[in-house]
């Protein structure tokens, strides 16, 4: 734990963490200092001047809180008339050249200018002269659209491309009120994290081409989840809305702060995986190319199990620990061989040293924990002599060539339980829809051995059965997620001391030893 210092805010003693600036230190105990340009991940720039505070004794009369460290005994003034007037004056100046086009601005509802106007300003406009005109619709590339007139020149976006991605595509050109954020000629935003500037922008100057004009922020339900685009497991908000007479639709993913995993950011590719949750979903069961009632399909599969000479169950590295364990137990029930073969989910060389990982699956670490074999040789050995292959969410087309698949199909019946339509769902003779992760709960372990839990965010008008339930209907022993969790805690040594039902939102870091420690 960091050292604590005692200081006074508006005469009241508060205890805060030392080594932090006043915005963070005092903010942590619930006292807000308004700021636009400061962002914890981007450091203090000190250009917006909204965080000016008074410090009594021996200091200049006004200091920017973002650049002032909390020090023992410091007397910070926030509520004096002088400071309130400064905040009001700065807000007035922020707004004189702002278009105030909130009705058509995507940021409306989550805009710092709106919030601060209500909280710190509230005066009528005194502008009787024309505002500065700037460019309204600039395609910066990478799906980012910029409105220079809305921009408050806080330079968060500029600092992001300089400090975080180190690509430096953005800069502020010109002086005075002609200053504007722009790209260099012929050099658009071209990094894999560019859409973070949309989140970073405290106003509506940076918008996402994908999201803009689709939804008002206040209609969106913001559900906490974990991105499954790769093995990093970036913490996200799933912003979704069920409009009247419509289904529950996801409109965007946004990064959610977790210093242990992803910090404040996520990659653009992961951000766009929300589309998979809406579109191209496997919605109905099919047997031999015909749409079938889900119960009939389950019945057909049960029969196939009992008739099969040798069954192989293949589980996806995207499955949660609960799903993996349920499938593992089902394999034991039917005396089937279990494989986690999924080499095609790994895209070697695609990862970077920031967030993006080579492994495009969310829970490969679960294989080690649950002792699930996932090598190609193991898979081929399992396949030998088999006449039934049941894949649980594992798109084997990613890992196998067409020739290999054709060869398997000659002797083996393919069954696929999946949330998504993909190539494997096209060739499987039985397909069964299961809930996607945005509709299900689960526990996963990321590439850094951090155990995380996500909850169901979306409730569809016609809910799809979750995988645990389908496995139960197929003869599996677990009736609910809770039962699996209890079993996991009891049987997996590494999880013995962890209350899986109450994993903190920042996750639990497991040691390497714990993750590779196989249950007895």
């Amino acid at each position, binding site marked *: 734990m960091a050292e604590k210092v005692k200081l006074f805010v508006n005469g009241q003693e508060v205890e805060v963490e030392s080594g932090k600036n006043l915005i963070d230190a005092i903010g942590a105990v619930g006292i807000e200092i308004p700021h636009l340009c400061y962002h914890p991940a981007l450091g203090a720039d000190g250009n*917006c*001047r909204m965080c000016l505070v008074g410090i009594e004794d021996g200091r200049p*009369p006004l200091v920017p809180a973002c650049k002032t460290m909390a020090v023992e005994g410091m007397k910070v003034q926030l509520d004096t008339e002088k400071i309130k007037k400064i905040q009001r004056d*700065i807000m007035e100046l922020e707004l004189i050249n702002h278009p105030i086009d909130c009705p058509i601005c995507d940021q409306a509802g989550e805009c710092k200018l709106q919030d601060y106007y209500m909280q710190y300003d509230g005066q009528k406009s005194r502008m009787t002269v024309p505002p500065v005109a700037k460019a309204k619709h600039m395609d910066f590339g990478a799906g980012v659209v910029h409105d220079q007139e809305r921009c408050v020149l806080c330079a968060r976006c500029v600092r992001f491309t300089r400090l975080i991605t180190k690509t430096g595509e953005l800069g*502020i050109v010109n*002086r*005075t009120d002609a*200053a504007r954020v722009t790209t260099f000629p012929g050099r658009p935003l071209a990094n894999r994290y560019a859409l973070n500037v949309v989140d970073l922008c405290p106003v509506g100057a940076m918008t996402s081409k994908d999201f803009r004009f689709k939804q008002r922020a206040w209609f969106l339900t913001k559900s906490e989840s974990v991105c499954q685009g790769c093995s990093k497991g970036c913490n996200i908000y799933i912003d979704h809305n069920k409009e009247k007479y419509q289904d529950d639709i996801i409109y965007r993913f946004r990064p959610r702060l977790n210093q242990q995993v992803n910090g404040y950011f996520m990659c653009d590719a992961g951000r766009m995986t929300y589309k998979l949750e809406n579109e191209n979903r496997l919605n109905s069961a099919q047997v031999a190319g015909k749409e079938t009632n889900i119960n009939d399909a389950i019945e057909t599969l049960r029969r196939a199990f009992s008739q099969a000479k040798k069954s192989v169950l293949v589980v996806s590295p995207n499955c949660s620990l609960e799903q993996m364990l349920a499938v593992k137990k089902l394999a034991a029930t039917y005396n089937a061989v279990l494989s986690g073969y999924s080499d095609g989910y790994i895209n070697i060389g695609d990862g970077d040293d920031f967030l993006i990982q080579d492994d495009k699956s969310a829970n490969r670490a679960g294989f080690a924990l649950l002792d699930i074999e996932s090598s190609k040789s193991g898979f081929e050995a399992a396949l030998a002599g088999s006449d039934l292959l049941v894949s649980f969410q594992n798109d084997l087309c990613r890992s196998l060539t067409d020739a290999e698949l054709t060869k398997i199909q000659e002797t083996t019946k393919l069954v696929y339980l999946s949330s998504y339509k993909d190539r494997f769902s096209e060739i499987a003779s039985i397909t069964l829809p299961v809930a996607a992760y945005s509709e299900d709960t689960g526990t996963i372990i990321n590439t850094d051995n951090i155990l995380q839990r996500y909850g169901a965010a979306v409730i569809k008008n016609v809910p799809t059965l979750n995988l645990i339930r389908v496995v139960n209907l197929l003869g599996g022993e677990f009736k609910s997620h809770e039962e699996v969790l209890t079993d996991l805690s009891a049987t997996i040594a590494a999880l013995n001391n962890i209350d899986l039902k109450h994993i903190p939102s920042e996750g639990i870091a497991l040691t390497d030893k714990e993750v590779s420690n196989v249950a007895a």
Partner: protein
Amino acid sequence: MQVKVLSARFDIPDAHKIEVAKENGAYSTLEKVFSMQPVEVIELVKQSGLRGRGGAGFPTGLKWSFLPKNNTKPVYLAVNSDESEPATFKDRYILVRDPHMMIEGIIICCYAIGSHDAYIYIRGEYTTQVKALQAAIDEAYAAGYLGASVDGKEYRLDVTVHRGAGAYVCGEETALLESIEGRKGQPRSKPPFPAVEGLYGCPTIINNVQSIASLPFILTNGPDAYKAYGTEKSPGTHLFGISGLVNKPGMYELPLGLPILEVIEKVAGGLREGRKLKGIIPGGSSTPVQTPEEAQDLTLDYESMAAHKTMFGSGGIVVLDDTVDIVKLVENLIHFYHHESCGQCTPCREGLGWMLKIIKKIVRGDGTTADIDLLRELCDNIEMKTVCVLSAACTMPVRSYLNKFRHEFEAYVKSDASCQTAM
């Protein structure tokens, strides 16, 4: 009234050439300087009472002593030759007429502060001056006063001339450092101050050309000789640039402490015949204006200026007579500072543009009394809320004109805008 301390060689033909300069005493202090300890040089400069000639008037020797002790990083000297404040034209004379005086000053300063690399930041528009300066530096290198060994001593000193790109704000010392480092000229937040963390993150002293050029005299003749000029708290001499509506505008070297009205009358030839004094800008466009009444007991030194709620500034005196339209003067003033705002801080970036539009509205004849009040209020709302003092350099004088000449602004909003107003 005029004296010849800094300008001693200004009128000697070819004094910008090293042979002529040397014949007339240039570089003659170096032997003495190198025989002293650096701390002794600093002490001597402190004793002389020399104050920074860039405008702020901070004691030069004291500034040097802020360098961190037990420092292991290189120390830099940056000579501020940006001279961009409107009505200021003193340093250019040094650069062209006696550049070796400044180079000698740089050697003295660098020895005192332990610096081996000095940068001269010169405003981009000074094309003649930069040529003269570079020629002098080349001569000094050739003559062995700069380079691997200064004047035969075991002391390396390299001087680099860095030309600005035309931004007033680069005269602000940290914007100047940003510009030397190759970035957009924007002031840095302080602390840290440059003496601790300046150029390339290293301790840096930034001095004005005239401050540096004053050093050879002080080292040659001693602090007492320097203090013989000027007042107790404002010792020495200053190159004053007197402009505006006087008969003999020009650059004059004067001891500090002289009555401003006497200087205007006796040195600058007084006002044109039949004209009345309306106001005086005492030290560059950013200093609050003085009315003739206020100027009665105003003397050219830091204390008197402060007592009159204005500033000594850069010594650029502008004399305004009764033909001057204060409202249009203010429009010009705001136009300049708006144009030169670096655009970093919200109040300055947005506020000066707003002020410019309001004053233009008033000049156009579309203004109201409320606009005058708003202009006045904006001065308070913007001032001292920013990283640097550029915004204050605009609001301080504008406030003074609005307070002291309000009737002229009111005449614009009440009646025919084209009419000139008399005192």
